[in-house]
């Protein structure tokens, strides 16, 4: 038996605490089977092919397949009551085949794809801007409401929600650590930036067919190119992708039809993540919640034409004519929104909003700007007709991403 001195006992206690932390800190206590096995599979219930998914920890039949890719006639339960046979026309079944215990074998990547991470607090700057999904029960629900797509950063997926009624339609696996999503103007394709592993080795740009909810291509980025910001030109031909890793930051110009990188703009400010095109697509405004300035890039020459002295800009919005740009800044507390004349680049107005404005969107008719404020969980409405700002009480914790249903 070893007789330990007090100092050794203290050290041993420290080691024990540390080991306990190593074992338990990886616990993600809100994690369910739904988190671990998102997606769908097909099983036989009463000899009928049934589409299943996890609802928390419960395997649940999906009563209506909103995505429309499950066709019971493609499946045969007559030969094996426990496992349906796929007889569809496609080469491989669109869903996994499994018993009711859950999808076997090949679920999607777990959150810990990167070095294993333990969260102390909600990461403030851990790579923004997944859209905020409105809560269920929207009072003016209409069947024409558009779907909402959400990137699930830790899970490496994109979830498609129906907004009327509010339903989780489908979960689409994409490359590691997705951040932002944007649609081509014709609505046929969604592009998703993925940061890649957390060592910063390189990410990808994923192309999703919106009609089938299938990934059509994963465009791998060069080494240490970690996509974050994303903007698509009004004609749908070009995507601009911000390479977040700095130094070495850049903006990649992607030809959407061929899905290739055509040009890289290198002389840009660090951490490009908030990227917005002017309505005519002639200018790309680039900000960053970590940045010291905001870039204005001419998309014809792909050069920086102006650097605005607006620090820590989380998002940028334009009016419908592109004559004014509204840039958020989290530099001060409370934060501010700067109204910038896009012809002269002069700041014409400054609006005080909540703490750490993260996203800004222009409403119809250029009358209101909606700003969500990350730190205090408030929403600020800027009434441009009267130059008045109304900031709400806190509505929740750390909202990131806002969108209007159209």
């Amino acid at each position, binding site marked *: 038996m070893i007789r330990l001195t007090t100092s050794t006992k203290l050290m041993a206690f420290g080691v024990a605490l540390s080991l306990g932390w190593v074992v338990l800190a*990886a616990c993600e*206590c809100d994690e369910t089977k739904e988190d671990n096995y998102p997606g769908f599979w097909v099983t036989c219930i009463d000899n009928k092919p049934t589409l299943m998914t996890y609802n928390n920890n419960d395997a649940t039949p999906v009563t209506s397949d909103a995505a429309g890719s499950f066709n019971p006639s493609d499946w045969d339960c007559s030969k094996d009551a426990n496992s349906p046979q796929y007889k569809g026309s496609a080469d491989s079944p669109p869903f996994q085949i499994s018993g009711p215990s859950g999808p076997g074998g090949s679920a999607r990547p777990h959150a810990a794809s990167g070095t294993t991470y333990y969260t102390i607090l909600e990461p403030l700057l851990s790579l923004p801007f997944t859209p905020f999904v409105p809560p269920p029960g929207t009072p003016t629900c209409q069947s024409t409401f558009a779907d909402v797509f959400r990137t699930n950063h830790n899970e490496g997926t994109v979830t498609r929600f129906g907004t009327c009624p509010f339903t989780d339609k489908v979960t689409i696996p994409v490359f590691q650590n997705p951040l932002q999503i944007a649609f081509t103007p014709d609505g046929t394709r969604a592009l998703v930036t993925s940061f890649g592993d957390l060592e910063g080795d390189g990410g990808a740009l994923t192309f999703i067919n919106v009609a089938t909810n299938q990934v059509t291509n*994963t465009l791998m980025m060069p080494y240490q190119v970690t996509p974050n910001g994303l903007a698509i030109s009004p004609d749908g031909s070009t995507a601009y992708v911000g390479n977040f890793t700095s130094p070495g930051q850049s903006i990649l110009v992607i030809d959407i039809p061929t899905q290739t990188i055509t040009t890289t703009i290198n002389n840009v400010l660090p951490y490009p993540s908030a990227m917005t095109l002017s309505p005519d697509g002639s200018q790309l405004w680039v900000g960053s919640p*970590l940045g010291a300035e905001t870039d204005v890039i001419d998309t014809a020459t792909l050069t920086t034409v102006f650097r605005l002295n607006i620090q820590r800009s989380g998002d940028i919005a334009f009016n419908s004519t592109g004559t004014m740009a509204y840039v958020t800044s989290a530099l001060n507390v409370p934060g501010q929104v700067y109204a910038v004349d896009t012809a002269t680049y002069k700041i014409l107005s400054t609006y005080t909003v909540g703490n750490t404005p993260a996203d800004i969107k222009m409403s119809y008719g250029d009358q209101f700007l909606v700003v969500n404020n990350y730190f205090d969980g408030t929403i600020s409405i800027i009434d441009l007709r009267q130059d008045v700002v109304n900031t709400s009480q806190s509505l929740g914790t750390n909202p990131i991403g806002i969108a209007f249903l159209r």
Partner: protein
Amino acid sequence: MIPYFPQPVLHLGAFQIHAFGFLAALAVVLGGRVVLLRAHRKGIPAEQMFQFCCWTYLVAMACAVLSKLILDNFPAIFVDPVHAFRTNLGFRSVGGIAGGFVGALLWCRWKRLSLYETIRRVDIVAYATPFAWMIGRLGCTLAHDHRGLFTTSWIGVKFPEGTRYDLGLIEFLFLIFLTIAFYALDRKPRPVGFYFGLYGVVYGGFRIWLDTLHAQPLRFYGGAVGVLVGLSGWAWMWAYQRSHASEAAVSPAVV
């Protein structure tokens, strides 16, 4: 091709234990046990070696976490120091190895141990390292947190984004052989510093090769530093042997 599967999770009521966390802790416990048993065989007081292990582990752990925090978040922390308290924690093994090594040297200095006694203890730890490292890398294998280049090789893992090397898996397989080799080599007495040098050279050399499969341009510094440290260990061992050659037939360095 090797199928991809998510990291196993053990559900214990409100707690969930991921395979990586469990195996990392198991690796520490196993490595500590190998060190203590070996130290006992070498005549080093158990309490002293236990304290040495605890100290080295704590410094290594702190350095692994700090290096991850600082290296990954330096620009953000520079802009906003409070960011350090909001971000995620993780490990950088290179920070842990370097920190543990420096911590071990500092402890020996604090205890006024000679260079010979210092190398003796470090050598014991080096002998135990493959045993523990192997278990730790098994955790990496299950967590799939070291993805390499895309490949069509039989050892590729079918990740959702395509088949690529799983570097954790490859290193785990390598460490199985290294552990067996260390165990076999230990059947004969070896000079002090032998395992320290061997581990540095062999593991460092392996890492140089392994990094060619990484999704990055070639970077050899990590493995190269290991090789250089290992060679310096062997150089010390050789110099010590020569300077004590005229002493007893069986050098005290061979214990």
